[in-house]
């Protein structure tokens, strides 16, 4: 048996075709990882910049309406090898009072839409397309080719069981395939380790080990399939034709067909429907506020004069402030209600799009090549389902955030839009004495009051009472990263199919070879 395996190994490894392919695969895999690693550093930088901006903005906020509750997380280290749906960029869940988030976005979605037509390469693609092709080339003639050359007959004249011959071919082939793969994998790993930005942490090492095993299993499966074709055919050129076209259809063809196919039969509603709904909701809100204002008339304009900077209101007269406070409370409640309804409309509209994208992942199971690719995405936690999970956690966090503000009374005490302390002197101390002409922005009176407000602004910057106390504000603590167990749960169907195809094709080859005519 070992002699047979050694013979297969020598035969495979010493051929020119393996040499050429090896060089190609290693170069491409290294290039793909290098590009991924550079891209990762790029994306990490832009993540750091974006989240730094966010923190800056939030730390400068003195009213609650200036707080941007967006959650951002850094890119996944394993995305360097398998970009998946999230790609090597960080992710963010963007939301606010008016908007309930549906999903997490990868931060690179902000790159121009023109670029969306370009397909990107990664290590898993190289394995899925190139190494699988090598598996095909190694396997297609290993039985029927030997028959044609006559060596099969010679070998079988020795006292070896036929099952051993097949097993030796299988083991020898898989080991020969693992040579270029291991080389590519190790080099890719070195490139990743050489990049100080890529911090492998937690179970990442375990995931890498599983990725290695998974890829070997995938190559074994493809090799076993082409061995099966070789055992089922009589001559090498037929086997080659079947294998090549099988590879073309299951690889390139299926990869390209899948997204278009997943849209077939799904009733994709136009975004116009949802956008029209949103417009209606906005009108409803405006109308609601008009109605409220007609039952709660505002005080005269002089009471409402204030200094508005970055949607923050200062120096309003207490009477005007009180009216604005009540108005804001009414409006905020309406906005929250409308946000929930807007979410329902949007989800109703986007649900088919989401299921289309999910179908791409679930139908991937039908081709070994796409199946492997999706498995690596799930392993690297870059699949669509990982992204949706983060979105769900963001939705939960929004609720916590709003609850927190409600508990603090932010919506009703005016802290939402103003940071004036209780004893703040208003911009217009005696509104009764002000005429309409005096309120004109270019009147000397208003100019003087504006100058006063500007002077106050300078002092306000040092006023500690205006600062927000955010010590108790809930931070996002959702477990947005799947644990290994959870990842395995979603990988299960794909893994089963992979092993099943491998086992079945090996069995078919074994049985078929038992009655194979070596003549």
């Amino acid at each position, binding site marked *: 048996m070992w002699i047979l395996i050694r013979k297969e190994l020598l035969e495979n490894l010493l051929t020119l075709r393996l040499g050429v392919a090896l060089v190609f695969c290693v170069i491409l895999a290294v290039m793909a990882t290098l590009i991924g690693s550079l891209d990762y550093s790029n994306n990490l930088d832009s993540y750091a910049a974006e989240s730094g901006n966010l923190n800056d903005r939030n730390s400068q906020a003195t009213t609650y309406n200036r707080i941007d509750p967006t959650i951002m997380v850094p890119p996944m280290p394993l995305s360097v090898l398998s970009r998946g749906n999230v790609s090597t960029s960080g992710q963010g869940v963007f939301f606010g009072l008016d908007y309930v988030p549906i999903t997490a976005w990868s931060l690179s979605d902000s790159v121009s839409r023109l670029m969306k037509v370009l397909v990107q390469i990664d290590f898993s693609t190289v394995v899925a397309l190139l190494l699988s092709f090598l598996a095909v080339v190694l396997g297609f003639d290993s039985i029927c080719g030997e028959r044609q050359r006559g060596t099969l007959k010679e070998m079988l004249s020795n006292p070896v069981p036929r099952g051993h011959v097949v097993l030796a071919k299988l083991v020898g082939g898989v080991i020969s395939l693992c040579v270029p793969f291991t080389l590519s994998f190790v080099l890719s790993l070195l490139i990743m380790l050489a990049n100080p930005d890529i911090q492998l942490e937690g179970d990442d090492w375990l995931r890498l080990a599983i990725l290695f095993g998974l890829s070997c299993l995938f190559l074994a499966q493809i090799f076993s399939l082409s061995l099966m074709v070789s055992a089922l055919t009589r001559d090498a050129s037929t086997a080659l034709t079947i294998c090549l076209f099988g590879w073309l259809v299951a690889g390139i063809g299926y990869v390209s067909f*899948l997204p278009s196919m997943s849209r077939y039969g799904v009733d994709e509603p136009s975004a116009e429907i949802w956008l029209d709904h949103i417009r209606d909701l906005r009108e409803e809100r405006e109308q609601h506020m008009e109605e409220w204002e007609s039952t709660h008339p505002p005080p005269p304009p002089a009471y409402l004069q204030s200094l508005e900077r970055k949607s923050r209101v200062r120096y309003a007269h207490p009477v005007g402030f009180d009216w604005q406070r009540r108005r804001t409370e009414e409006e905020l409640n309406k906005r929250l209600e409308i946000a929930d309804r807007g979410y329902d409309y949007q989800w109703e509209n986007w649900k088919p799009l989401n299921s289309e994208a999910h179908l791409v992942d679930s139908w991937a199971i039908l081709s070994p090549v796409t199946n492997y690719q999706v498995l690596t995405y799930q392993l690297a936690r870059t699949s669509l389902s990982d992204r949706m999970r983060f979105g769900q956690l963001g939705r939960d966090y929004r609720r916590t955030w709003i609850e927190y503000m409600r508990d603090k009374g932010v919506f009703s005490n005016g802290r939402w839009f103003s940071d004036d302390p209780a004893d703040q002197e208003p911009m217009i101390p005696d509104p009764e004495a002000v005429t309409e002409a005096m309120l004109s922005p270019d009147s000397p009176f208003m100019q003087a009051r504006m100058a006063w407000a500007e002077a106050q602004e300078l002092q306000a910057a040092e006023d500690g009472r205006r600062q927000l106390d955010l010590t108790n504000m809930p931070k996002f603590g959702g477990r947005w990263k799947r644990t290994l167990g959870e990842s395995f749960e979603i990988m299960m169907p794909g893994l089963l199919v992979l092993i099943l195809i491998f086992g079945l094709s090996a069995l078919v080859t074994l049985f078929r070879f038992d009655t194979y005519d070596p003549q």
Partner: protein
Amino acid sequence: MMTAVLLHQLRDNLRSLRFQTSLIVLLMFFVGNGIIYAHKMDRVAQEAELATHSDESRYEGAETLRQAVSANYKIRAPEAGIEFILEAGSDWFPYGMNVSPESGRFTNLSHARTVNYWMRTFEVMDWGVIVRYVLSFLCIVLSYNAISGEREGGTLRLVLANPLSRGQFLMGKFLAHLLTLSVTLMLGSLISLAILALSGVLELNGMVARSYLFFFVGAVFYAALFLLLGMGISAVARTSATSLVVLIMTWTALIVVIPQTSYLIAIRVVEPAGFYFDQLEDFENQFRETMVAEGIAPRQPELARVDAYALEHRYAAKLNELDGELNQRVRAIEQNNLRQFSIARGVNLLSPGFAFQYTVEALLGTGIHRFRTFRDQANQYRSALREFLRARDGADPDSPHLFFVPDFMSDKPLDSSLIPRFHLQPIPLGERLAAAVVPLSILLLETVLAFFFAMHALNRSELAAP
């Protein structure tokens, strides 16, 4: 004698399993294309109808000139109608624009129809992809043992013993392969056309015929390139198996790998704009706050009339300044994005697949050319809209004529059907041809090089296997 080689090869091809499978696979792809696009074009047409309705309602909502100024219009480029030949970004490019004539608003590109952001980027199943991937692959599969196979079988020496030059032998074989593939391609594309025409989504007119012709000629040149490459390598390689591996690896590098690096190269060369809306908003807020701080704010119209809108004139001038600055910034970002994409296109051009794709895109006036045309015309549309509103406002003696500040323009009723609508003008043929020059010359150059390579390889090739 060359005809004899040609005929012999044709007969061989037709009988071989390889060719029969190729035929089936190619037809399968084209049938798939027909079915997918029959569905897609139908859906797109329905959506376009809905969108037209929604857009028109925005025009109709403007009952007075004032409303017409403050309204937000959406304009879109219609579908080119040849997406099944080349999708060329019609799914992703922002073929829509939000336009408002009001001062201080900027025009921004947006999607013309539903886009699924959850979808991973992928190659769409148009004819372009079928040719780029499948046809070139078939070329290789048909030609990888054109010379080495004959040498291994010992027939090469016999054939060349006849009064037949090596060049004639090469040409005969090459033309036979090209002919079989062209006929297969024609068959496949006609089946796809038939599916689309029968399902009622495609009207077969002169435009489609012209596009078909351009596409077909481009595809034949592209096929020739890969056939010649295959025959050349087949003459160089010792065995057919080596030839196949070398060819497939070359094919993968050229067709699959080079285009997949273009994205990453392009975003490294030209920095993406990022979330620029935040920055624009910050700028605008700051600008408006400074205006308020300087006391430049509109008053009640009755109050303002007293001094002939002196303050409001300053306000309008400031807003106009803001308008100019905002639009200039957005234009700069668009320009940046276009430059980034041209870098990616430049990288892609290294792949013969994209030399073919971009040649046909240019000739058909689709892809980036169509997008750029749309962008330019859409940006001009705002000026046309403003010109119209300015003229209408001028006709009203009661209006304060503060242009594009809605509260200080005419309040007279306006017949909304008179507001000019947006119509995308097609790209003239001359411009399309000019745009095709670069990719076409690359494609032709590569084909000629492949021809000389094949000739040279065959001339130096051994006649018998060692």
